[in-house]
């Protein structure tokens, strides 16, 4: 069973605020899912490479960097929850006290 400390840590990494009820429920449900996933521990993969993509990996020579049709600033900002018309508005990421 995941501890509440583990749940808090994962929630923080995922930038998810959770209620106490959600924390308890996810601890229980994620534990059940991880128990189910334990069957992978019994598979011998000592000589097996991981698959990150099914596509054959190939080196690509960079092509000429051509500027294509671009979104206008208005289009880019259109869906922003807050903007001043020129940029996204967001609380300071770095403040003097930090």
């Amino acid at each position, binding site marked *: 069973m995941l501890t509440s400390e583990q749940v808090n840590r994962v929630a923080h990494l995922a930038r998810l605020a959770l209620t106490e009820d959600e924390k308890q429920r996810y601890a229980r449900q994620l534990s059940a899912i991880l128990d189910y996933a334990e069957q992978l521990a019994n598979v011998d993969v000592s000589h097996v490479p*991981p698959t*990150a993509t099914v596509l054959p990996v190939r080196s690509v020579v960079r092509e000429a960097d051509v500027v294509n049709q671009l979104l206008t600033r208005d289009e880019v900002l259109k869906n922003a929850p807050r903007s001043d018309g020129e940029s996204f508005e967001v609380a300071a990421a770095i403040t003097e006290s930090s």
Partner: protein
Amino acid sequence: MIDHLTVKAVRAGLQKKQFSALELTHAYLKRIHEHNPRLNAYISVNDEEALQQAQAADERIAKGDDTPVLGLPMAIKDVLSTKGLRTTAGSRMLENYVPTWDATCVANLRSAGAIFLGKTNTDEFAMGSSTENSAYGVTHNPHDESRVPGGSSGGSAVAVAANLCVVALGTDTGGSVRQPAAYCGITGLKNTYGRVSRYGLIAYGSSLDSVGVLAKNAEDAAIINSVIAGHDPKDSTSIHSPVPNYVDEINSLKSKIQNLRIGVPKEYFIGGLQPDVENAVREGVRAFERMGAVVKEISLPTTHLGLPVYYLIATAEASSNLSRFDGVKYGLRVNGDDLIDMYGKTRQAGFGDEVKRRIMLGTYALSAGYYDAYYIRAQKVRTLIKQDFERAYQEVDIIMTPVAPTTAFKIGEKVEDPLQMYLTDVFSVTLNLAGNCGISVPCGFDQQKLPIGMQLMGPALGETQLLSAAHTYQFSTFN
């Protein structure tokens, strides 16, 4: 006028002037407004633009223009971006999001003159197997409205099955086109990874996501696939390979069922499989045998590992992909005391239960101390699953299995137990892990008159053969 209209019949009807695109679109919109309040297949209905598109299509037709989808009223799953048309991904997070560009598959259809009736319901960010995880309410299966339509492309499947459109686009990360197609009694094509551009598809599991087609039959799926498949410079994972003319191919390949080698993997006929489903799929296999196919039992020994591998890899990728929903560039924002607090509150309010659960699971699998044991190990077992298929395709051309262990289940039946819900994907996820293609084909009904689907699986870029086999089967069964 519109009952059971196919893509092919629409084109013929428009050419023969049996109806105009405008008349057709009016008829579909009327039907949508009549039935959607009950079925909830559409999140957004695109009345105004659809009628404009229909008018434009009629003008093009009058000038002698012709494409396979000109004037075709269709539906688009709401995880595919549509320029100027709200795209929610089934989430509160994107309740007011209006894309400023089209997904490439949507752009291809738009320029070919298709008509977009609206955006169909989906599990939030395509995470689910029943369409119960949508923030916009559950979609109801037209065969029994107390049951789920499957998911995550449940809205698209119901729109096609209930004649609320001719054909629809869906997406498939772990079975999300094939399983709803099976539950709703229609045909669902899942393309090879990279065959259709993912540009403009709101990402869930980027190494698994693929665009597919939900259709009345394989021929319709072939027509749509010819328009949406192909390399796209905007998607570095799209495949550089010429797109076959699927429609010509399937009509000329009919005789090729003769000596087609079909593998039936014993691991897909196990305990928990509903007897009616097993019988119908085995009867489907026998139908192919009668048409000259050679059937043999094969083994895909890693089948049972597909689910745990899928739910670790897909959620890991999702946890990374969904970090973009941070209340800054688009979507919901809930103000907080500082930046971190704003992120947490925004994501708490914007995401539903299943999405949070998957983000948590994926973040855990990627976190320091667990990365090797879960994520990397899952990727290694993924290699074994892929190798299983590669071995199998040395001795058979296609593989036939059930799409899902049961027919459509009751709404609410599995929502309390996520693991039980995940188990419905046991026969569909392996295909995505291997990056191959598959098609879900109706093959009968159970005792409760609920549709059963059989899955035809093919190797990478095997769409032509799958569509051809499905088309021949449907032609011989229903004509």
